[in-house]
């Protein structure tokens, strides 16, 4: 066994230990105002080094890979994870690839320590993936910029150190950094079905600095975040599946454990197949993205993994409710938390249909035979 996979195993073990000690599906029941997460729990995760993983070593981070963080997220996702690990990683990737030296030196060590909380604000409409146009505008004002527009589904929902905003300068799209306490920012929290929070953020001539990286950096960061969200979904799938297998083995009707019925067995196998495929899809997509040389190739790999993970998570959690029967539809049983969390995670950064559309836009069936 290589050192790399030995290191990976240690990371996974530490994540599992944290998950067993500190996380449970019931934790997601309490709405955490104002930012949507429990700061104490976040500090605990920071001690584990999670926000430091993608931060380079010379910036106080661990300098690890997407695949490493994905492996940890899969463990953390099993009992459900009410913490903004992926949103912060999304912003971290944008800063690592697209920020100037000053901003990197100011923010990255603080992110690694779990003290800074950056967010990416890119989405403007409720449906769809980032398109070719952006409505939020950036106007140059001396050596600064002023942003005007509205962004939706911003995660985490408040308490930001600052926001990385995708905006148009009239010609091209760029990334801008807005301090969290800047004037001209108004926010409105939105509650998710899983009691998570996101925010709608309105900028009115909010002061910003422009990052050297533009749309290309954003796409690379988006691809990374999409892969990590898929890894969290994979964990969720494991969690829901394991609870359901337990139930199939213990719940008795007609004098036998219901898991002995072939109709349920075959559907359980299809759930298991969805889980195994999600794992294999993610593993190869991470490799593709890490080896890719363009942001388009990274997004294409990410779309495949997220399409699989989103569809599998809905399939598995819906089947889990069905197999639990009436008790599965009650609020008090934990299996419902998995369905609700799956709804949020499958949608965020694009659901299966949206990923499929993006993938389609990047490839085209070609005739393999010589035809006119």
């Amino acid at each position, binding site marked *: 066994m290589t050192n790399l996979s030995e290191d990976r195993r240690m990371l996974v073990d530490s994540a599992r230990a944290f998950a067993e000690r500190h996380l449970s599906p019931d934790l997601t029941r309490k709405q955490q105002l104002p930012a949507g997460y429990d700061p104490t729990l976040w500090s605990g995760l920071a001690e584990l080094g999670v926000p430091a993983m993608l931060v380079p070593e010379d910036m106080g981070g661990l300098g690890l890979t997407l695949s490493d963080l994905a492996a940890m997220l899969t463990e953390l996702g099993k009992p459900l994870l009410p913490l903004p690990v992926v949103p912060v990683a999304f912003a971290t990737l944008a800063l690592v690839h697209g920020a100037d030296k000053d901003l990197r030196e100011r923010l990255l060590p603080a992110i690694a320590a779990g003290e800074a909380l950056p967010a990416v604000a890119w989405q403007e409409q409720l449906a769809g993936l980032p398109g070719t146009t952006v409505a939020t505008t950036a106007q140059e004002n001396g050596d600064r910029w002023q942003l005007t527009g509205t962004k939706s589904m911003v995660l985490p929902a408040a308490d930001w150190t600052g926001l990385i905003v995708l905006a148009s300068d009239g010609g091209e799209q760029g990334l801008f950094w807005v301090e969290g306490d800047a004037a001209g920012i108004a926010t409105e929290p939105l509650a998710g079905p899983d009691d998570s929070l996101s925010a709608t953020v309105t900028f009115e001539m909010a002061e910003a600095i422009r990052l050297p990286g533009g749309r290309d950096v954003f796409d690379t960061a988006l691809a990374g975040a999409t892969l990590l969200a898929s890894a969290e979904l994979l964990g969720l799938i494991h969690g829901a599946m394991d609870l359901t297998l337990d139930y199939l083995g213990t719940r008795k009707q007609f004098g036998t454990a219901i898991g002995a019925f072939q109709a349920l067995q075959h559907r359980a196998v299809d759930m298991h197949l969805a889980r195994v*495929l999600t794992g294999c899809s993610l593993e190869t997509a991470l490799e593709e993205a890490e080896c890719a040389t363009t942001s388009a190739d990274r997004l294409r790999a990410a779309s495949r993994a997220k399409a699989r993970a989103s569809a599998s998570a809905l399939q598995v959690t819906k089947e889990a409710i069905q197999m639990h029967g009436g008790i599965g539809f009650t609020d008090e049983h934990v299996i419902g938390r998995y369905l609700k969390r799956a709804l949020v995670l499958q949608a965020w950064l694009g659901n299966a249909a949206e990923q499929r559309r993006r993938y389609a836009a990047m490839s085209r069936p070609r005739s393999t035979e010589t035809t006119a």
Partner: protein
Amino acid sequence: MTYPRTQGSTTDWTRMDDAAFRAAVREFFARHYPENLRYASARLRLDEVRDWYATLSEHGWIAPSWPQEYGGMGLDPGKHVIFVEEQEAHGVARVPDHGIIMVGPLLIQEGTDEQRARYLPRILSGEEIWCQGYSEPGAGSDLANVRTAAVRDGDDYIVNGQKTWSTLAQDGTHMFMLVRTDQDAKKQEGISFLLVDMTTPGITVRPMKTLAGHEEFCEVFFDDVRVPAANIVGEVNRGWSIAKALLTFERLFLGSPKLAQSALSRLGTLAVLTGQNDDPVFRERFAGLEMDVADLNALYRHFSGIVKAGGKLGPDISLQKIYGTETFSRIADAIVEIAGTGAMIGGRAPLGDDGFDVLAAFYNARPATIYGGTNEIQRNIVATAVLDLPRR
């Protein structure tokens, strides 16, 4: 014991690194495989592939997984997977390979010296072609229910009964079959492996036409067929456990992405030929299938990785068979759907330079979810042996 081979007998493939081996295999197929037989849409008959069989045989390439001492290439499982991958990538058709894939390994592991000396060289040379006698009218998915009886009579067994779904048995000179040698034992016990010369009096072979119109498999009837007792392989009444072991490896190859991959490229071709290539609804559907095939490849890489690392495949290999064949079937459905009334044409529809057989993949998809254990049986296996769900 000597085994005939004209070339290549001294090449030690195991010492070659994987990349060099892959290149050598690729080069071999490119140089020797007949261009007109690439990507055949149906299983080829013996007379179509006899020359290719001979070519493989002459170069010592006919039996990739057999040990070199028995005339094989002596490939480890990892290199064997590479061999098969290159074979599929080049569109190389299967030769009648039951002797190579099943009988050879069976005799090497379980056979007597006499059996090995008698049969192995003739498999390598192509002089004898083997067919399989497993399924019966009353023993399909429930294979352990075989009824064909072999009753001891002096130095012989007298065989009576019927086998079915014997692929290309009309081309076979010999059959390896499962027979019941103990009528009173429990189902799985009392089954033995028997080798039978197809020219023995009392054997009748009746080819059956498939839905696709090919005579791909046969019924074989046994009426007081006298077979030497020396033709039992392994211990009497212990044939079931041998047969089961042979089936596991088969599932990796039955679920290989090859079928789905080539159907997907056929779908792309048909879309271009029918002018639907730019239709956004089709494009999205195609992308979905393209991602399914990519994930199928990822699954295959997972399982073949276990084999390459020298590990043993577990019962979860059934997932590969399930997903490979069902993905293939969905793509075949898409071909029929976008062909519209093209599905009213049996054979080649007048599309493109060579015509386009709309129904070929659709027909091939039907047995794919049945053979090697139906996908329902595969799901039963995963449910109990992998997910540990209770049995009834």
